[in-house]
């Protein structure tokens, strides 16, 4: 006789079913997956470089690259070959070892980030994205650690080092200024980004990227809307994440690190040849990876309806389409938005995004609790909104008061 009923937090075995029993086939499958995402990332990056140039030229009534291959699609390849044969310069005053190390430090995290992204699989009808390869059940993602989301944060915090050290080791003024701006900007926006991610984690109840996608593949509101993170978290964390991620990527309008008019080329001013190409690639690769993270956290990852044919293929198609939307968005940002001033950037990060995301998490948790305890959702919502408003007013008053007395303080040097 047993009275025990296993609760929802208890899971028998977690993670990729492939790893329950490790043998040579399993290793082979993992290596295969690594090669596939490596190739995918490189191709996607090359495509992104071309796409950005082509799209911007379209928006600006220019033609853009059109000579190398059809529609100039091989232009990136041509550029890469050109970089490869350029002279490799290391400035005299550079810190040699760090100078050589820095490009790799920005390149490697961009790859590693992609490891935890589910990029395919059928998530319909409780399938949970399991596919069968060579008779083994597995997920279409290289690794599914139980702390996948934290892994994303950890890797994106490692990515700072590349640019930061590149600027410092160049032994030159502008790159150094670029580095200092970079580190301040990254620290400021990583907090907002982390808080936006936490909102998703609160709603989906897991830190594993695979579980997050599985939750989002479930039935949404009224059976019509998808159960995507963007709707689960009521939209705001998504917007915060878009802004913070753009800043984290140093893409326009937050590209103060490499603001040409002020800092020449920013942290990579002194770099040339293949080292510069690495930075260039890393930047675009990060853009692709960040778009994939968007899709995973907020737009249901590879989850989507299967129209015909094999389910896993549709997973990949949906994933690619969703990523493409974000790539388009980033290019659009670049083509239309003017660059922020440095103080505006910092104000936006510290005085708007961080308090807003913090307040939003509290709101979400309050609503969750109300649902759990069968309280009146409407009353709790109104109450939370009032608290939210009061806190915002207090913050505004404090910021105003600080600005009013700022003249008595010396500007930090």
């Amino acid at each position: 006789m047993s009275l025990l009923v296993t609760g929802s937090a208890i899971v028998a075995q977690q993670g990729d079913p492939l790893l329950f029993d490790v043998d040579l086939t399993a290793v082979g499958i993992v290596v295969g997956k690594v090669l596939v995402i490596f190739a995918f990332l490189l191709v996607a990056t090359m495509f992104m470089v071309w796409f950005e140039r082509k799209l911007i030229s379209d928006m600006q009534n220019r033609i853009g690259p059109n000579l190398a291959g059809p529609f100039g699609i091989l232009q990136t390849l041509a550029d890469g070959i050109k970089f490869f044969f350029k002279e490799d310069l290391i400035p005299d005053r550079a810190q040699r070892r760090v100078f050589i190390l820095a490009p790799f430090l920005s390149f490697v995290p961009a790859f590693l980030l992609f490891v935890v992204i589910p990029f395919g699989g059928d998530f319909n009808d409780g399938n949970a994205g399991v596919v069968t390869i060579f008779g083994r059940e597995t997920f279409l993602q290289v690794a599914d650690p139980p702390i996948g989301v934290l892994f994303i944060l950890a890797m994106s915090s490692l990515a700072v080092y590349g640019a930061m050290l590149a600027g410092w080791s160049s032994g030159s003024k502008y790159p150094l200024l670029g580095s200092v701006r970079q580190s301040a900007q990254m620290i400021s926006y990583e907090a907002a980004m982390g808080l936006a991610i936490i909102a998703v984690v609160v709603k989906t109840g897991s830190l594993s990227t695979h579980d997050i996608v599985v939750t989002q593949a479930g039935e949404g509101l009224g059976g019509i809307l998808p159960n995507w993170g963007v709707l689960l978290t009521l939209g705001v964390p998504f917007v915060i994440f878009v802004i913070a991620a753009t800043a984290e990527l140093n893409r326009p309008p937050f590209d103060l690190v490499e603001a040409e008019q002020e800092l020449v080329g920013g942290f990579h001013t002194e770099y040339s040849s293949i080292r510069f190409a690495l930075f260039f690639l890393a930047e675009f690769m990060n853009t692709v990876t960040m778009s994939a993270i968007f899709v995973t956290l907020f737009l249901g990852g590879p989850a989507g309806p299967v129209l015909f044919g094999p389910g896993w293929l549709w997973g990949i198609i949906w994933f690619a389409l969703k990523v493409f939307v974000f790539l388009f968005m980033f290019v659009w940002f670049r083509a239309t938005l003017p660059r922020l001033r440095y103080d505006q950037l910092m104000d936006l990060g510290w005085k708007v995004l961080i308090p807003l995301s913090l307040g939003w998490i509290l709101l979400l948790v309050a609503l969750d609790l109300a649902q759990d305890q069968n309280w009146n959702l409407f009353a709790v919502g109104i109450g939370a909104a009032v608290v939210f408003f009061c806190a915002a007013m207090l913050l505004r008053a404090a910021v105003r008061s600080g600005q009013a007395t700022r003249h008595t303080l010396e500007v930090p040097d």
Partner: protein
Amino acid sequence: MELFPSDAVFTPDVSWVALWPMVVMALGGLLLLTISSLGKGRIPRPFYALWAVLTSVGSFITAIPLWAQVHGWEDAVLWYDPEVDPTGPFSTVGGVIAADGFSVFLTMLIAVSMVAVVLVIEAYLDREQDRFPEMFALTMFAALGGMVMVSANDLIVLLLGLETLSVAAYVLAAMDLRRVQSQEAGFKYFVLGAFSSAFFLYGIAFIYGATGGTGLVHITDFLAANVLLGSSGLMLLLGLGLLIVGFAFKVALVPFHSWSPDVYDGTPSPLVTFMSSVVKVAAFAGMLRVLVMAFESAGADWRPVIQGLAVLSLVGGALGAIVQSNVKRLLAYSSISHAGFILLGVEAASDVGTAAVVIYLTAYSALVIGSFTVVTLVARSGDRLHTLTDYQGLGRTSPLVAGLFTFFLLAQAGVPFTAGFYAKFSAVIAAVDAGTAWLAAVAMLSAVIAAYLYLRLVVTMWFVDPAAETDTSHVGVPAAAGIALAGCAAAVLWIGIFPNTLTDWAERSVPAVVQPAPPNLVESGDEADADVEFEVGPDGMPGMPGPMPGEMDFGELDLESLGIDPAELEAMLEGGDLGFDVDVEFEDPPG
């Protein structure tokens, strides 16, 4: 067979009455920060001082019902409520916060010291024309850390209280933004503090490894039930040794003291009152609770170490003070010597010793706050005049200040009918009582040496003509500092002349080993359908964390949401195969 699903959450039992003093302090500090951020430049600074004083008083008042709950209401002077029976010492929030005479009395002492400290800070800020109120907020948070330390019943909580206190204290030491000397003092304090915290932490890690827990009660029980041999015993000793080193750094015992004169010298003078009263009280309280309560059975191991530290501090402090020409450094050495006296009480490892420590800490707080208040006033604008030369002829130019300083110095020297005498007397008695009369003799000898240096300062003030460079302007006493000085002087006199009241309180201020209350079960859902009460045997019960004998009332539970089928439970109850007694009242009997 388990009664609870394995993902059931057991939350600790919370008794708010024990937490109010800390909650008031924390809220007061946070609100002060909020108000100051909103009203920057518009609200006059005395408002913040008043706020801090009121918060400290509020913290004191909320500690009174706690004392009453521990010791009975007849002691609470303000009101009497026969409805509440004294429950004796208890612990709360899963046993990490202790509420016994020791914690409550020292919490009150910290609150009262805070009032005096805040007043002195206000007088100082007024003189220096400093507008920023953050100093008050930081002292309040530091006092909160101190309160947590005096009531911590778990090494983790003790550590976090210590860190809250220390981080605030580092900033306070470096707070005089105009003098790089202050920042250097802050940095020195910081490095030494972080260093000692690291030793402390490393010690905790070893103790955790040896005993399998960080709760002081757990450690006590564990040591009573097990004999540690071999590497476990070594591990425990190593941990204990590292803990003692950490504490010794914090309270500046010889040979871990050399930071203290430099830090006292560089820190803004009013904040030295804080560092030498609240910080010392909290650190000694933590030390006493850990050593005397948790490691009572290991007394043979740590008592010789404490005796050695006591001798070194007593003699080293007194001798070091003699050669100083800077009054703040001199008082720093004298406080090292005082710390040696307090160790006499710790070393005794008895109730008498604990009472002596409590008495000494009370008397010492009053003395040291008074002394450093005078130092603050004499230092004049800019907080710069601290050498003996600056005190020459003070008796003639400012007799009131000089008179009060003389009084505090004589009391520190241990002149009869002052708090200093009574405190030293109690410490010596405790040492003799514990069978270490030789230590008492050393203490008395060092008191004689120390008396010389206090007299030297007194003579400088009254009988030496001011030198050419001495600032002979009159030292005024601002109202705020005056109140603090009067309070300290009154306390010193009162303890000296009527010591019985304090002794009475101190004797009831002993730390107690209290088993934690059983946890609550979190239930999800509001539809309770059974009132469940368990009587748990000595082995605990299945599905419940830990052996926790005794009765526990889970109150009204929603069985369905817990995954328990009422009918099945009913059947099990009748079958009697649960393995423990359970008393369930069904609101809506199944079947």
